[in-house]
């Protein structure tokens, strides 16, 4: 993942440029490719900064204000940087009934941060998210956009954190 350094010019890397060009013909308007384009930028830069928004606005020929409106609407399009591992714990009812609050408490303890915060070394960000569609195997967490970690126990959480060290 690259950093969105203000001095560095924002642009899709070769692979993302290829993917961007491939998806354009499937839409009748350029604007419709906005969220897919933001997903590519999100993957590449880790968050949707003002520079990223300006770049995508230019590529799609839409106003920056429109891109800002879209980025601010969707939960996944975070406009602030997150740690290398964004740990997202489902907090909604079915998972809560199976101990999601204990999962969050344990993660807060092990990472030394509260929900919404990032560890000082920039490695972990901890978030609570809404229903991830994994209710039968809760409690559940997702690291970045990876496969869900399901049927969590405190031991499993420890193993996940150890693996991510």
């Amino acid at each position, binding site marked *: 993942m690259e950093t969105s350094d203000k001095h560095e010019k924002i642009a899709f890397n070769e692979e993302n440029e290829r993917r961007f060009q491939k998806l354009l013909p499937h839409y009748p308007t350029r604007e419709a490719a906005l969220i897919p384009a933001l997903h590519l930028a999100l993957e590449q830069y880790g968050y949707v900064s003002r520079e990223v928004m300006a770049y995508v606005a230019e590529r799609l020929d839409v106003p920056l204000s429109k891109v800002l409106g879209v980025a601010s609407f969707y939960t996944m399009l975070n406009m602030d940087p997150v740690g290398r591992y964004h740990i997202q714990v489902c907090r909604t009812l079915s998972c809560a009934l199976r101990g999601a609050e204990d999962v969050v408490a344990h993660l807060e303890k092990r990472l030394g941060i509260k929900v919404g915060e990032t560890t000082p070394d920039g490695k972990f960000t901890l978030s609570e998210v809404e*229903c991830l569609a994994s209710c*039968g195997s809760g409690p559940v967490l997702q690291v970045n*956009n990876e496969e869900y970690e399901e049927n969590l126990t405190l031991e499993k959480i420890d193993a996940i954190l150890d693996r991510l060290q």
Partner: protein
Amino acid sequence: MEGYRRLKHNWTIPRAWDIEVYRKRCKFGYETARKVVTAMEPAAVTEIVKQAGLRGRGGAGFPTGVKWGFVPKDAEKPTYLINNADEGEPGTFKDRYIMELDPHQMIEGMIIAAFALQAPQAYIYIRGELGLAARRVQAAIDQAYEAGFLGKGIFGTDYSLDMIVHRGAGAYVCGEETGLISSVEGKRGNPRLKPPFPAVVGAFGAPTIVNNTETLTSIPFILEHGVEAYREHGTEKSPGTKLFTVSGHVEKPGVYELPLGFPLKELLYDVCGGIRGGRKLKAVIPGGSSAPVLTAEEAERTHLDYESLMEVGSMLGSGGVIVMDDTTDMVWALKNLTHFYAHESCGQCTPCREGTRWMDDIVRRFHENRAAEGDIERLLDICDSMSGTTICALSDAAVFPVKSFLTKFREEFEQRIQRGTGG
């Protein structure tokens, strides 16, 4: 449980998401789509789906064949088919498994549906969090293109169909069909007033049919085996089988395919092994969090079909069955849900934007023993302002849990007032 295998039958076949396996070992192997596209008239396909009585499996339960028929015959713009795979209704996780385990049956259903609509373009709107599902589905689509089942002139006919995955980015309201359409157009996922209905004016101003993933996955069976076979299970008004997702305090949570009309009591105690740890049932939400909650007594005497659940004051919805045992603090549970709706409101309509936030604040007061006299009445009053007064049904969806919890578990809320005032 044998005999109800029209949706889950490929899930136990390893690598069914690989087209080679799907064609050799799975139903329907793209052979049903081939027969439909090469030998049937589009209008005849719609008629069969209409007669089969399939109802939308996303939550609204609107008859699918009827919806398809709303596309104007003289439409100037080409029709879009959109698979609503935004599965966000709390308690629901069936479409995710369809996409991860059996994407080809879903695609086959979409091909048949798109053909019936003569739609040249189809999108699969997959919620952004489901990264694995999106990868599996896109890979399956690529394989279908290679095999000539998608693209220009499919199955050797002159009907062409383009299909891609379009990922969402985290917004429950995009599961609402017009919110989804706004999102596909590259905008904030704000729902729109109906009429006009999407079938007439939808995405990019063109006729658009938005169908739930499970609905589309149900199509191949209907075309392969016919109306009578489809209606062999289920009830008169709720024919067929459905995927029910059970979560919460049961021994065996999971996805279960059952005929509509199945007794909820049997689902809880026989299929799902009863309440976890042998505890007592307290409450059940039968159709995803937007469905009114049932007491244990109500749950044990009702059936899982659209009509029965309406009769008992709730709804089938998405079929997301959330089970709560007697350890559950209903104030805590409601607080969990009010937070959800407050977060997910798109913000367009004042009653919903302000109401969801206000209800969340008040219910949190209850949980923290700070509720004031009149707070129950205040909540019910807000519910009235939010019902039927907004562009989309998210507002009504937020009201159902609040109203039903307050009605059926009122004492727990009243106790919190007394504690707060030292009474």
